[in-house]
């Protein structure tokens, strides 16, 4: 599963290379300088996000119809007009172009993971190679340092 391993581990390297080929580092999700290269961020360089991308963040302040939301370390103002449930401090909301479109209960994140486990359970007898892949992931990160 070389292909799969590399698909999941090296996209960042490939993207940066292509970006350099294009003459500049493109302002895409996980652009250089982001705290977490895997996650979308809201720094100005990352504004070139698709319009249907939604980003989860934690509500750290509420003032009427406006909330201050922490997106993995970046704070932004988010409108609360669209979300259909009362939002409280500490809740997670999904942001879409400056509007919270859904309150995400923490339990649902775990539920989604469970769904994946169920979907995958039928194929468990297959050799997973997961350990090898993780080791390769770790090694890749080591080399990057």
């Amino acid at each position, binding site marked *: *599963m070389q292909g799969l391993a590399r698909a999941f581990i090296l*996209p960042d390297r*490939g993207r940066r290379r292509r970006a350099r080929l294009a003459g500049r580092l493109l302002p895409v999700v996980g652009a250089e300088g982001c705290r*977490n290269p895997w996650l979308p961020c809201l720094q100005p360089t990352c504004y070139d996000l698709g319009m249907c991308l939604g980003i989860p963040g934690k509500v750290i302040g509420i003032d009427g119809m406006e909330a201050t939301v922490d997106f993995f370390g970046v704070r932004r103002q988010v409108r609360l007009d669209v979300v259909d449930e009362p939002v409280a401090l500490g809740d997670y909301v999904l942001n879409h172009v400056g509007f919270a*479109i859904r309150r995400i209960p923490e339990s649902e994140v775990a539920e*989604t993971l469970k769904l994946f486990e169920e979907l995958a359970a039928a194929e468990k007898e297959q050799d997973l190679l997961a350990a090898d892949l993780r080791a390769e992931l770790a090694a890749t990160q080591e080399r990057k340092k």
Partner: protein
Amino acid sequence: MSAQTGGVAELKFRDPGHARELTTALARLVQGLHRAPVTLMHVCGTHEQAIARFGLRSSLPPGLRVIMGPGCPVCVTDLGEVDEGVALALQGVRIATYGDMVKLPGSSKSLADAQAEGARVEVVYSATQAVELARASDEPVVFFASGFETTAVTTAAILLAKPPANFSVLSAHKYVPPAMEAVACLPETRVEGFLAAGHAAVITGYGLFEDFARRHHTPVVVAGFEPLDILAALVKLLEMIRDRDYGAANAYPRCVTREGNRHAQESLWRVFESADGPWRGIGVIPNGNLQLRKEWAALDARRRFRIDVSGLQQKARSELSRRCLCGKIMVGLVEPTDCPLFGRECVPESPVGACMVSSEGTCKIWYQYGGRPDLGGGT
């Protein structure tokens, strides 16, 4: 990384072991269908970004094609709609719009061209910023609003929140379900299942697709945006095809429910109504456009201003744009690499077609990441 649940979840979502299990499941399911290739369509630029960025196509089984349909709201914004924006800008009206819209070519000019001629075009990240621009001055500000239903809901929200009198909206909002209908009805289409966009479904709910799936014998699965979200949704979709289960399913339960966000749906249909309208490169989609209802005429730029686009429309299409395959790419009939202009005459810096303009356009995504990257070992 702070101790957020997102952090923990994120690690698991990137778990190569899970990915391996899911791709094995995909391979078995495709084999079990005894016909190849099986074509599945997604209708969201963010899905295409995730698929391309993580090189998912290189880990799909050979008999499975995942193609992008009309999932880029900027790309399907019609020439005529851009012309209206450009005409207003050239008439001296201040235009606020999303970043991707600025370079989008109209019949003869883009908003960027208008800007170069002295028109005032401001890029906003959110509809609220457009309202703030209007609040900060007395002159008319027109918000040239694009996007699918998820974005239209935010435009509806600012209109319902009583914007200032000098603010109005030029709506290029589109509604995805009718476009899926149009693709399913194309005689050339061989799409056997749809991945619906997760965040549109946050608003509309996945129940909306049940009727569509039954009528077209095409199951629909709502998918999230993590690589594993997408793989899990593809597995679910193939299972439904195998079981002839023509319904709608939810593979994104942490954000999507059957009913969706009722409050947002109410605001959306209070402000907008669906209308037949042209989608660029595809044609007129019945009920595919979202236009402001009559009650909102005072805030509708089309009713408020006399928009004269005649000067922009006279020019014949250029030789280059005649060779552009965006329309066929957007309904999934050909891939960007089939286009003679892709990566040659048509690049993100000087796009010929709309698909190379937006960060959600199939061509721009393939140009940046490679649609079928050679990652070794894949197909």
